[in-house]
């Protein structure tokens, strides 16, 4: 805008008169803008500004807890050349992938049942109730259930099925993913339920009417139509689970060092904020890559809408 105004001063007057006209004529548009202002402001203040600051900071340097403005890609280079980053990324991606896959796959039939098979919302509410307990309570609950002296191990020992407690139940990938799935399920369930609610039963009946059995209807109608909510359910869970560092710390054993923890450490104990910022942006880039891959896979598998199957 500014550039235009400077190079063509004549336009300024004409442009200035336009907003006045618009405002006086289009009250509807104006109220629309006014309504959109609070959420926009919220996004700008709490998301956009910090993100930009963080991005800028990722090119700075640091000396124990103080940031020094600079313009260097050293933080990125350092992160990408350290094997620890890749190790943590591998753990994070596994956590993200398995949690997102399992919670989406587990939620899907439940959501289907809630939307098409029952008129009551009891199951939905039941799932949401688990949300009311705090995150940490749920983590510790799983620690108790899976621990070496926990419910499962002691029961198995009592029945003589095992002699020694199963160590891998707790402090392993297994326990981390079980706990994360439990934490994420209400989210995926809600997203999938609201996605399926948009697909009226008519569409499923139309498919059956045209000769589609259950599986055909699932692959050719439900999944393509629910594409958006499946992708958002998967990505939402993926991002939250992959960046989580509390559950892995409490239950991960050797697999505790996720990228999330690595980043958090830069901000908390190490005090190298620019390095942490660079890592955070690298993680963001990886998430975008995962997102693009997911979209590509669904498209390749013909599970995305907007494809023509004829010439």
């Amino acid at each position, binding site marked *: 805008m500014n550039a235009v105004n400077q190079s063509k001063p004549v336009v300024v007057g004409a442009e200035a008169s336009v907003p006045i006209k618009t405002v006086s004529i289009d009250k509807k548009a104006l109220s629309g803008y006014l309504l959109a202002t609070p959420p926009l402001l919220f996004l700008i203040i709490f998301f956009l500004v910090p993100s930009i600051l963080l991005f800028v900071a990722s090119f700075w340097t640091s000396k124990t807890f103080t940031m020094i403005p600079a313009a260097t890609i050293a933080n990125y280079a350092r992160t990408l050349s350290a094997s620890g980053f890749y190790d943590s990324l591998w753990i994070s991606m596994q956590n993200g992938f398995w949690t997102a896959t399992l919670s989406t796959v587990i939620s899907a039939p439940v959501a289907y049942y809630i939307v098409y098979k029952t008129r009551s919302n009891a199951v939905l509410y039941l799932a949401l109730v688990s949300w009311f307990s705090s995150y940490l309570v749920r983590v510790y609950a799983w620690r108790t259930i899976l621990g070496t002296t926990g419910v499962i191990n002691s029961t198995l020992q009592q029945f003589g099925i095992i002699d020694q407690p199963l160590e891998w139940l707790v402090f392993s990938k297994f326990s981390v993913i079980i706990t994360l799935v439990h934490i994420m399920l209400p989210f995926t369930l809600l997203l999938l339920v609201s996605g399926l609610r948009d697909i009226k039963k008519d569409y499923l*009946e*139309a498919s*059956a*009417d045209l*000769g589609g059995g259950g599986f055909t209807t699932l692959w050719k109608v439900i999944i393509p139509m629910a594409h958006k909510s499946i992708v958002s359910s998967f990505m939402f869970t993926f991002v939250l689970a992959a960046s989580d560092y509390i559950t892995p710390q409490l239950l991960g054993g050797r697999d505790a060092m996720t990228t999330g923890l690595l980043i958090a450490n830069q901000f908390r104990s190490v005090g190298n904020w620019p390095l942490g910022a660079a890592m955070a942006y690298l993680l963001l880039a990886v998430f975008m890559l995962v997102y693009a891959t997911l979209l590509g896979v669904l498209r390749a598998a013909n599970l995305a809408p907007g494809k023509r*199957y004829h010439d």
Partner: protein
Amino acid sequence: MTNSIELTGISKSYGSLTALGKVDLTVKRNEILTLLGPSGCGKTTLMRIIAGFEQPTTGKVVIDGKDSTSLAPEQRPVNMVFQKYALFPHLDVFDNVAFGLRLKKTPKDVIKREVIKALELVQLETYKNRWISELSGGQAQRVALARALVNRPAVLLLDEPLAALDLKIRHHMLNEIKRIHEETSTTFVYVTHDQDEAMILSDRVVLLNKGGIEQIGGPEEMYWSPRTLFAAKFFGDTNIVGGTYGASTGEGQIQLPFGRFAHAPKVALQAGPVNVSIRPETLSLAPAHGHLAEGEFLGKVKDTSFIGNRVIYRVAVAGGTLDLKCQQLPTPGSHTLPPGADVSLKCKPESFVVLPA
């Protein structure tokens, strides 16, 4: 095989609610049969039982000579046009129409030929690449028809297919459906609660009421010879007048509040109280003149509505105890009589429909 569908003893209950009770119905090959009735009478339920979306509580569904009672919808040789079309928004027009054929593993070139043919039938061949969101209501309706018809079903089911369209397009689509029926020679079962639609379209009308069949017949039969009071009132406008038949009044005589009329009943009729349905267009009306001829009686105009091709009078008769609706055909230069005018009315007793009260 002359029947496309044979339903015997079909009933359907939802818990304590009986949506359908013991329905027997045959649909003949290539006819257009309409299921007509007020809201909640069970039209949709009956159609969904034919399509296989609902299991009847009792009874047998035979489609094309084959017992299909326990067949899933995808195994039945019927196709349905949904009220809200239910076209797949993630597919374009061509792929929507091709959906059924692809599931049957039809060869590609056959699919292409058949889909284009079906789109030509509904005059939308140039729309094959459109997305569903880019269609108007009437166009979506045609695509839905093509998507069903391309499978060459033994029976095409249509559940109030025009309900979502506005009046003008509705009339146009009605004629289109008639044309398409003639061109495809398929059996159509058409659900509607609009009697005009049913009359225009049908070979036979099935009038449903409270989960049962009230009467089945051709449009003219349904209009002129209703067998129940419900049927008489459902089709068009009519005057229902209470009276007495036979007995004290004499064989073949009907006593009405405004006179006694000779009537030869078409069906066996018990002497006693009756309801008589008198169509407004069977009454003729003239300014009152000196003496009353045979079959004439006096009345006073209460109000009039001039509708262009007809004038509707509401006339108080029998000393003001009864209002009759009377419909006249205006001609250029004829004058509508004003309210308050004394008139003489003449009825055609042979057109009376006399029903036991």
